[in-house]
């Protein structure tokens, strides 16, 4: 398991989802990726995308106006 950070600051919907989707394609099941966003819409969109693709959101927090969504990569590719 490796831990990664994805900077999606200043990107607006749906770019944070697209960046997350593209990042996860290069990761292995069990890897963790922390997506840092400034668009509040990402807090709905990234979990929705994860649910349908078999990845787990294991944490969402807000720090200084930024949203950090932590995703554990699931077994299903893409």
């Amino acid at each position: 398991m490796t831990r990664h950070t994805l900077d999606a600051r200043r990107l607006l919907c749906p770019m944070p989802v697209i960046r997350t989707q593209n990042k996860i394609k290069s990761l292995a099941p069990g890897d963790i990726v922390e997506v840092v966003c400034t668009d509040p819409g990402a807090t709905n969109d990234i979990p929705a995308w994860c649910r349908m693709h078999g990845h787990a959101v294991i944490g969402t927090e807000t720090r200084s106006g930024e949203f950090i969504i932590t995703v554990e990569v699931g077994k299903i590719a893409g």
Partner: protein
Amino acid sequence: MATPRKAVALISGGLDSMLAARTMLEQGIHVEGINFFTGFCVEGHTHAIRAKDRARPKRNNALWAAEQLGIRLHIIDVIDEYKDVLTKPKHGYGANLNPCLDCKGFMVGKAYQWMTENGFDFVVTGEVIGQRPMSQRKDTMPVIARESGAGDLLLRPLSAKLLPPTRPEREGWVDRDKLFDFNGRNRKPQMALAAAHGITEYAQPAGGCCFLTDATYARKLTDLWQVRGSKEYELDDIMLLKVGRHLRPRPHFKLIIGREEGENNFLEGYRRQFTCLRPISHHGPLALLDGTADESDLQLAARVTARFSQGRNAPLVQVEVTRQSVTTRLDVQPLAEDEIPHAWYI
């Protein structure tokens, strides 16, 4: 048991594409959704920027629709590839800068490419004959099928009975009798079908899902291209056209002035790329100056910015001007309302 056939469905987030995908699911087809982000989609950006839209659900409608359908959605960034579609449309533009026919052909073509790369069998769209004046006509639908390369692997379930049978129908992958003959702009058949499927909530873009159909946006984009002398753009350019008032007081510069807090915050992210003006003696907007400006231009820009501040009726407003990390302060008299010609507004 035979392996189900697989269809990739273009999902916009609107009702028609939901119904088309749902119709395929009802026939036992494995459906996955695809959605293309051109940079011009109304989806998302605006509700994330403007404070007045904060009460609206902050969700991507295509993702939401796919989740309601219980299918996976793949969102594809086509920003760069789309530039050719927009700047050199073979079939021309609609009422504004909307290259609808070329756009649909491009998206179906991309979906067809995705289909072949991922081992799917056919492409599904929610197109309805007569629904749109440019891209959804009986005579243009074959153009999309042909120019996209999808040919008879493109199925439009909602109008299929009014079109020649496609390969999925001929081969018996889907039952043509269970497809539809929707035609025209009347939405009642779709609403009835939605009700039959228990679909009660859906986005209603009503043709407004793309900024390129918007006259004001098209005017700003035309202005950008005219000033540059070419139809070039980057994502930041087209994002900024969605935000604020755009005024061009002089041919060599324009001002982008935030209309409210959400827009000011968004424009703040660009302050290092542009000359930035902000009233400091009174509450007021953040303004970005795009172009070149000498000292007299800066004075004018500061006076325009002051006009949109709460000091618009004050004798003087102090405006902070930051250019290339150097900040100065200008005390200026706000322009009077009649000193801002209508022609400055882009």
